[in-house]
């Protein structure tokens, strides 16, 4: 088990190293001189260009620059934002809580909604199953910005239950402001997770060991909990792990739609203004979240399914 974890950590470390290098290197394949981006169209004097090149160490080899960037990123120093003229670390720290709360809220909706609908669908063949299947097919196909618009139209403008725009004050205010965005963000993943859960539970219900458990006279609740749910959760956990980073990126859409001050909407603004230090920092955070989520899944699976422990390489 320890060897397995170390191997996975090593593999994820390599992935992280390569992806962070891609994130950093992207700026340098951009057409034109990075210095002219940083000066943003102002007719640069040679002295100004030289000053910027010196400030951002643009004359060093790419690997040296990358080493310096990743080194300071590890200490939380992502450089200065060109657009806001502040430390990127401070800007992110101010906006991160909104995004983390939004992602957590959406993940909760996704897991609860997905599991309940998925198991319900598997357990009740017939009309219930068909309605859920139709609903989840549409939910999966609904982009978060369309869901956002529909929710705003119905619940914010039409019924006036929720605010249309911005973040809230205090815990309750924040929850109220985050409810529609979280639903918009989680909706298509509720659909996805429900379908994965259903497929997995239906397959498990057909297995001989479930039949055996029933024939032995075990109460149905125990059969479902111990024999169906536990086995069916394996693919569900895997899928959840892989969609979490997508969830973080999708906050860009939802935060823009609802005018929330998080890192997602900041990413969009920074891309439009070509504020590379901010773009790089946020991309790095997303990739880090992906790697950590996958590590968590790898550690969780052997707990759920002892067979993966035995056959782990």
């Amino acid at each position, binding site marked *: 088990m320890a060897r397995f974890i170390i191997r996975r950590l090593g593999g994820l470390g390599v992935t992280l190293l390569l*992806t962070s290098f891609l994130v950093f290197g992207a700026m340098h394949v*951009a057409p034109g001189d990075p210095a002219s981006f940083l000066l943003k169209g102002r007719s640069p004097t040679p002295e100004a260009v030289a000053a910027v090149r010196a400030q951002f160490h643009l004359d060093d080899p790419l690997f040296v620059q990358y080493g310096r960037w990743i080194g300071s990123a590890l200490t939380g120093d992502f450089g200065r934002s060109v657009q806001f003229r502040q430390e990127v670390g401070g800007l992110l720290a101010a906006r991160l809580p909104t995004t983390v709360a939004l992602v957590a809220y959406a993940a909760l909706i996704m897991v609860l909604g997905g599991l309940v609908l998925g198991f319900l669908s598997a357990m009740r063949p017939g009309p219930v199953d068909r309605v859920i299947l139709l609903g989840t097919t549409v939910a999966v196909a609904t982009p978060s910005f369309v869901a956002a618009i529909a929710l705003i*139209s119905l619940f914010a403008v039409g019924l006036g239950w929720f605010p249309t725009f911005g973040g809230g004050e205090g815990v309750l205010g924040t929850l109220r402001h985050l409810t529609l965005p979280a639903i918009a963000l989680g909706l298509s993943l509720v659909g996805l997770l429900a379908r994965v859960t259903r497929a997995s539970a239906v397959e498990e219900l057909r297995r001989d060991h479930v039949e055996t458990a029933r024939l032995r006279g075990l109460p149905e609740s125990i059969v479902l909990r111990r024999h169906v749910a536990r086995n069916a959760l394996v693919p569900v956990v895997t899928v959840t792990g892989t969609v979490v980073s997508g969830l973080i990126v999708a906050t860009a859409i939802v935060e823009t739609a609802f005018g929330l001050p998080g890192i997602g909407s900041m990413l*969009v603004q920074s891309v439009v203004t070509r504020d590379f230090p901010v773009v790089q920092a946020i991309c790095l955070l997303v990739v880090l979240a992906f790697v950590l989520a996958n590590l968590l899944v790898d550690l969780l699976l052997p707990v759920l399914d002892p067979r993966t422990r035995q056959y782990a390489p």
Partner: protein
Amino acid sequence: MTAVVPGMAGAGKGAPAVARRRGLRWVTASGPGFVLAVGVLVLLVLTAVFAPLIAPADPYLVDLSASLAPPGPGHLLGADDSGRDILSRLVYGARTSLLGPLAVVAISTVVGVAVGLVAGWRGGWVDAVLARAQEVVFAFPGLLVAVLAVAVLGPGQLAPVLAMAVAFVPYVGRLVRSLVMQERQRTYVSAYQVGGFSSFTIAVRHVLPNIAGVVLAQAVVNFGYALMDLAALSYLGLGVQPPTADWGAMVSDGQTAILEGALVQALAPGVAIVVAVVAFTVVGEGVADRLARRETGR
């Protein structure tokens, strides 16, 4: 050439003709939802191709006196905040909204098939290197690659399309790799090998046609996902730029009108996106299911 190996003639051929003959029956046998989805797709493609003939008005004609006009005889779906005919913009929007995903799917399928074929056929270190490279791409959600590409190349349709194509390659590559690894266990492959055919010939001429159906089904599903993500980028102002009619950009344009109670401008393109994506998903998954059932002989 195929006749050289006895009993092997047509192992990888003949399938298209059979598919054509059985085509219609195949569609109707897959249930009413599948038939409906196929119908929607055909309608969408026709709309995009014949947009100038179908659209009742010029999608770019600004008429401020008709701003936010409700649906009526003049404008069947009403007019947007600039007084442009919403239905005409929807019809023309089908063009940009379908062309982008088409490019994404074409590029990612060609590259993904090449990568998967090489990885599955050669195995060993080639497979290991390709798997590692794909894992790196996997760490970037498609939307993030696209945003990063826009940051580098600037807003417009080019950067998102290229980025999404790259992001989709691992999905196709992994599928093709697993299919190829199953397929090369089959006796017809060993028969060709004994018959002295080169690996390249067997892989491309005989294995590829056998897995083409599943790969195409996946491509149709991917089309829907690409459509969603490209529309999202246009909504964010990073993809198709206004005033070009595009469903994603139209939703963004219509968002301010919602606060004034005019819902059609934003909701109509939103519904168009959902309907299109549902149709692509249902058709793609339906075909994949049929192929899987035929494979297991049920």
